[in-house]
């Protein structure tokens, strides 16, 4: 393929590269700022734009990581993420598989039954009252069960199952295998890419979730990390910041920045690995709308 170097084409390229570089800078700079703030000593001045800390310190991180609420929050988040992801994966697969089978009775009706919930819901208050009346307040179940299935992810998983060659399953059926055996012995081993995608989607969702913990969990020691962070950074709750020891100089802003970093770093570390699967999942799902 020969390129024609017309002036307008070159101008377009220059403009395009410049714009995208600018976009990247605007995406990254806020994180660099947060990074800098979190490693700065409390006395640092931010009167001018500063790319790296004036004086480096780990004090902010030491404070945040010795905070009992932050540590408890970490634990609670890990528990909900592990439990929630495991349950969601199992139920998603178990739901997607029957809906992918042509011989599942009234398949269209059941698909509508499921998809309808994407467009119409009871909303915040009825769900809250339900969870409350089920006695799930202050339990991990309140964080895990109401969001057990994400309909959109389940549909993508179903589309993936539908694209698998049917002949494999038919030969297994002739050998006497039932649907459950076929699902676990044949379909699941062939579906690792989409299962990895569902796991990552769910895990990231749980890691980032906070609202359900805010309304269903009332004991501050049982809150997830995001809510602890909210209390510290957005509400500026002093008690949660461990700033009560008055003899120390402490700058709430640098502490807040370190708190945000602590919540963010785990995801950023996994991010390059996550991204690949997330994108693949979207592509797989969009092939068959």
């Amino acid at each position, binding site marked *: 393929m020969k390129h024609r170097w017309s002036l307008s084409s070159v101008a377009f390229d220059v403009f395009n590269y410049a714009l995208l570089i600018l976009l990247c800078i605007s995406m990254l700079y806020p994180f660099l700022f947060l990074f800098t703030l979190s490693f700065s000593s409390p006395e640092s001045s931010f009167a001018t734009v500063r790319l790296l800390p004036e004086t480096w310190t780990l004090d902010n991180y030491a404070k945040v990581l010795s905070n009992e609420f932050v540590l408890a929050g970490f634990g609670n988040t890990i528990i909900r993420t592990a439990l929630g992801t495991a349950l969601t994966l199992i139920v998603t697969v178990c739901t997607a598989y029957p809906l992918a089978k042509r011989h599942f009775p009234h398949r269209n009706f059941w698909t509508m039954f499921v998809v309808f*919930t994407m467009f119409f819901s009871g909303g915040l208050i009825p769900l809250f009252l339900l969870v409350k009346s089920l006695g799930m307040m202050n339990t991990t179940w309140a964080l895990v069960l109401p969001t057990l299935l994400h309909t959109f992810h389940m549909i993508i998983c179903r589309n993936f199952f539908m694209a698998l060659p049917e002949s494999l399953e038919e030969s297994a059926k002739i050998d006497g295998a039932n649907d459950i055996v076929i699902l676990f012995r044949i379909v699941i081993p062939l579906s690792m890419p989409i299962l990895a995608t569902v796991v990552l989607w769910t895990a990231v969702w749980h890691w980032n979730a906070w609202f359900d913990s805010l309304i269903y969990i009332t004991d501050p020691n049982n809150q997830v990390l995001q809510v602890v962070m909210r209390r510290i950074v957005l509400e500026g709750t002093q008690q949660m910041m461990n700033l009560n020891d008055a003899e120390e100089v402490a700058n709430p802003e640098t502490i807040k920045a370190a708190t945000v970093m602590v919540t963010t770093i785990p995801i950023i570390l996994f991010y390059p690995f996550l991204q690949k699967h997330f994108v693949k999942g979207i592509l797989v799902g969009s092939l068959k709308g």
Partner: protein
Amino acid sequence: MNKLKLPALRPYVRHKYLVLLFLPAFLYYVMFHYVPIYGLQIAFKDYVFSKGIWGSEWVGLEHFRDIFGMESFWQVFRNTLIISAYKLLFGFPAPIILAILLNEIRLVFFKRIVQTVSYMPHFLSWVVIASLFIQFLSPSIGPLNAVIKWLGFDPIYFMADPKWFRTVLVVTDMWKEIGWSSIIYLAALTGINPELYEASKVDGANRYHNIRFITLPSMMPVITIMFIFAIGKLVNDDFDQVFNMYNSAVYEVGDVLSTYTYRRGLVDMEYSFATAVGLFKNVVAFTLIVITNAIVKRVNDYGLW
């Protein structure tokens, strides 16, 4: 079981393993989706927790009369529509433009860097992003205000100034989602037959012609579907974002239906009133989706269903 006379149930018995697999999902959807939909009736009742949904008294449309007669509701409704309209106007085309620009990049590694960087914020919660921007835009420590002051202007209280708050909402929303939203459009672009571009080159087309007559039309089905979803979101505002970014100083421009429902419902515990607001929002969103889908389908044959 073998004496079962109901013929409708026979296929369920025959495919009992599939039914067994589907059972947890059935229970889940009934319990956590259809029971709350059934619970919507408290919008027409005077809900008292001790009496339960059944025991509470019917009051008909009283809560809706209250809502529609209330200036604070209309204020919130207006805010929701204005913020969503801005997001639709600026936030909807942005990822499409980004996808087109990325599609014109020939250096694969550069393209990949831009994609990786622009997807990243999507993976963080609004709590994190809101915290980040509250510090970034701060008049005392934020670099943006440092520049504004350096240029000789007064610092801007972005988060607390009603004049700026909606702009902040729209821009930060674009910042968080632009890269991620572009994926679906890029997926559509990978399906374009490269011969189309070669043929147009023979016909003497330049890059603008290519974008206009090949790239953009190829994205139309996806753009249409995303547009229907975006219309449905006009009243389903982003609770996560607004709730984490707003404060009482900007309620007049930033309070939206979902945050209002939360405050009236869970903070003030006016369950029935808040449910009525939620139901109103839900019905409007559902109607918008159905209407848009019908119109779009008539115009260009693509649709959600």
